[in-house]
């Protein structure tokens, strides 16, 4: 877990910086239209990067929160409950994020 947290960190440093730069300095957020988003998301590499970005960020963030709570002395039953709530929330976020990403790219399944 500790190692995964570092690996995702390395990835996120690059992608988060790129994400901010792309969507606030290259394209201004205020000028965003669905067409532009779709154009970007239809590039396979960009699409893959964004999905990976979502998964890595969710893991890194939720794992960070979980560790912070453990360091506050969370244990026993409460810890098990918190763990599964966080896992479900993460999975929910990732599933929803991928649905959104597919809608943006114009891919429809079912």
């Amino acid at each position, binding site marked *: 877990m500790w190692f995964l947290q570092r690996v995702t960190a390395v990835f996120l440093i690059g992608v988060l910086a790129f994400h901010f730069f792309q969507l606030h300095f290259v394209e201004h957020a205020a000028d965003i239209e669905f067409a532009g988003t779709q154009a970007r998301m239809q590039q396979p590499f960009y699409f893959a990067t964004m999905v990976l970005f979502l998964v890595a960020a969710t893991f890194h963030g939720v794992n960070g929160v979980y560790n912070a709570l453990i*360091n506050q*002395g969370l244990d026993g039953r409460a810890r098990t409950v918190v763990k599964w709530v966080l896992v479900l929330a993460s999975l929910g976020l990732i599933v929803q994020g991928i649905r959104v990403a597919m809608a943006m790219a114009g891919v429809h399944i079912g």
Partner: protein
Amino acid sequence: MSADDETTTDDDTGVPGPHADRLARKEASNEGRGSAASDADRETVRFRIYRYNPDDEDRASPRYDDFHIPFERGMTVLDGLIYARDEFDPSLTFRHSCRQAICGSDALFINGRQRLACKTQVTDLSRPIQVEPLPHLDVKKDLVVEMEHFYEQMHAVEPYFNPDDEPVTATTERRQSPANHEHIKMSTRCIWCASCHSSCNIAAGDDDYLGPAAINMAYRFAMDEREGDRREDERYEIIKSEQGVWRCQTQFSCTEVCPKEIPLTEHIQELKRESVKRNLKFW
């Protein structure tokens, strides 16, 4: 803890303390140096000392007492405490032994930082000098804290070589290369004073965390080339357990307060990297 609680114990007209002889000699030597100062106009240092005594109704809730200690060149905080106890209040309780930063018994919270009282010069501190027991350890009386949990953590890493591992013959030497000695040298300097443990935010929040001192102790053996492979594996099981190195958040608090200047954070980080390597090999 308000100013009202301050007890100024200025009168030293009482019975001569056990160190009367020593003090008389000191005074004589002061005069020898040509200082005409009498006790009345000698420079004093105000010590603000944490007091607590569960057996005394008067002190059952913690407060701070003020002591005005005559200043002397080269005076340490421990000298001040000893003077306060011997001359003003024999009930003032604190641990001390060797007075030379070897025994590790007088680690205290002095002016908001963990320091050894015997190694801390009064002239290096701003005044008044506030002396409190180590934070995050339970106080037993005045400046004395409960160390049992700290010792338990130290013993949890089994700080010894394999006791069953007998030398091949009675004359077999177990040699350590100079390079390996250099590697672990700093980690062997630990005096079990608990300064680092007291400064660690994570150890404070969770008693299960081994803490910097115990991990450094594990490092001292894990990195020693004389440790056998099987023993080393067992030790890494403790080091990379949930309560081991992963809990460290690299705040550097321990490294900053260590009176023996052990690079604790560096040692913990080295063990993290070694543990990751071992885990990856396993997979």
